[in-house]
């Protein structure tokens, strides 16, 4: 190789080369946006043509009472809104329990206790390697009558145990992500095990745990639709019931999907804003 003499520009002379408006780049962006719009238009058109060929009678004008009705100046919430509230309640409670289960399982797996590790691993493998629907039937048809719990709580517990297994791995990963030196630092100043986790390890693992955990909450909202098969009165069940009454299957499924989408996208935006604050905190 020949000798190489660095020709690097000195730092104070590195000026950003902004040429202002870039016509070529703008044209490329425009074409790509156009392509996306075209694809969505074609899909929309195909659905509309298909529905027309079936002679489907769109009745969008009838949807308002699905959300709310005003009788004598009093607002009465419709089945879709009540269903959504139930879905959020279901997912909220299940989310809290899932996180508790997740912490317990993560610590059991990390512990030196053999029984703790065996129990935690058995739980994780059992939950992750059986279908959610089968777990739900187990909870509803087997455990619910044995322990005398109603269908709402059977659904909550099933979802909690299912999502808890994922929460456990997220939390375990977060705790393992804390540098080994931090444990030693805590040991060196004579902290006991509980204090060491409480003041040093957990606070430092939270920035690693929270973003994926909020992602888990989003998938929990989506997975909660499955409890409609045991007739818990949440959003999907409300949709099914409305279709049975009105036969407006197309409109209602679009509405139900749109409502799930609205909730999860709101949460996603919330999460990314939250992550940005966490990043700034570093």
């Amino acid at each position: 190789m020949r000798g190489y003499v660095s020709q690097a520009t000195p730092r104070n002379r590195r000026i950003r080369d902004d040429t202002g408006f870039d016509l070529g780049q703008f044209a490329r962006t425009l074409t790509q946006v156009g392509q996306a719009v075209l694809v969505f238009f074609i899909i929309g058109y195909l659905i509309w043509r298909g529905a027309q060929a079936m002679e489907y009678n769109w009745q969008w004008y009838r949807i308002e009472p699905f959300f709310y009705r005003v009788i004598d100046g009093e607002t009465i919430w419709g089945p879709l809104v009540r269903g959504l509230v139930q879905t959020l309640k279901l997912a909220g409670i299940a989310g809290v329990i899932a996180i508790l289960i997740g912490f317990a399982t993560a610590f059991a797996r990390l512990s030196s206790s053999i029984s703790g590790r065996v129990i935690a691993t058995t739980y994780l493998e059992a939950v992750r390697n059986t279908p959610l629907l089968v777990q739900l039937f187990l909870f509803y048809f087997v455990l619910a009558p044995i322990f005398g719990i109603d269908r709402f709580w059977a659904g909550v517990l099933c979802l909690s145990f299912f999502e808890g297994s994922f929460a456990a791995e997220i939390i375990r990963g977060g705790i393992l992500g804390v540098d080994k030196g931090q444990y030693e630092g805590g040991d060196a100043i004579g902290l006991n095990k509980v204090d060491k986790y409480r003041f040093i390890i957990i606070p430092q693992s939270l920035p690693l745990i929270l973003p994926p955990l909020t992602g888990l909450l989003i998938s929990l909202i989506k997975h909660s639709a499955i409890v409609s098969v045991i007739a818990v009165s949440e959003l999907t069940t409300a949709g099914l019931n409305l279709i049975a009454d009105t036969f407006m299957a197309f409109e209602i499924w679009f509405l139900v999907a749109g409502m799930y989408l609205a909730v999860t996208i709101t949460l996603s935006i919330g999460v990314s804003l939250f992550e940005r604050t966490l990043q700034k905190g570093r």
Partner: protein
Amino acid sequence: MLDITSKPLVEITGMCKWYGEFSALHDINLSVHEGEKVVVCGPSGSGKSTMIRCINQLEAHQKGTISVNGAEVSPDMKNIEQIRREVGMVFQSFNLFPHMTILDNLTLGPMRNRGVSRADATDLAMHYLERVHIAQQAEKYPPQLSGGQQQRVAIARSLCMKPKVMLFDEPTSALDPEMIAGVLDVMIELAEEGMTMIVVTHEMGFARKVADRVVFMDEGEIIEVAEPEEFFNNPQSDRAQLFLSQLLGH
């Protein structure tokens, strides 16, 4: 000068340690009396760090006994925290808690282990921060400080526990050269005040100035123990001669 007749503060007898088949430490015998300063040196991988990490049981030994202040330490003991508060430790990589202010780093140990009130712990912390010349940084977070400042904070954090003996595990090895002097100055001041110290370091100037004894280790064994002048001018073993010639030869 030293009261050798007293019971040693740290006493290691016949200690061995293995990692699987690998023998990390073999038949270590060392006693350190109150007020004594011992510098441990030797090539990397010789077991210096492992040895001092066994004293507060960050590493478990498998054979032999270690006692601190008359109490024997063992890997399966329940109240290891009570031993650890007598033994301050300063790490190569500082191991400060980055999510807490400097002040909180210092007050945590006294408050949780010794049950000191927050106000008293704060007084204590400020006292030691002043001693390491860093009191004006108390409200900052560790990553905002330079390496040398962080290491001085780490020393202050250990002192807040009012330990009977301080262990230093290569305290200056991770520092930029211009930061080393500040940390060594703090350590020299500490030594002059009579703190019992066991220091793993390559800073031979520090060893000459401060150490009562130099312990030379190689391949998991203590090869030579001597006073610094004796050790540096007239090392007995071939391995110590080789080590010193490599260290001072350039």
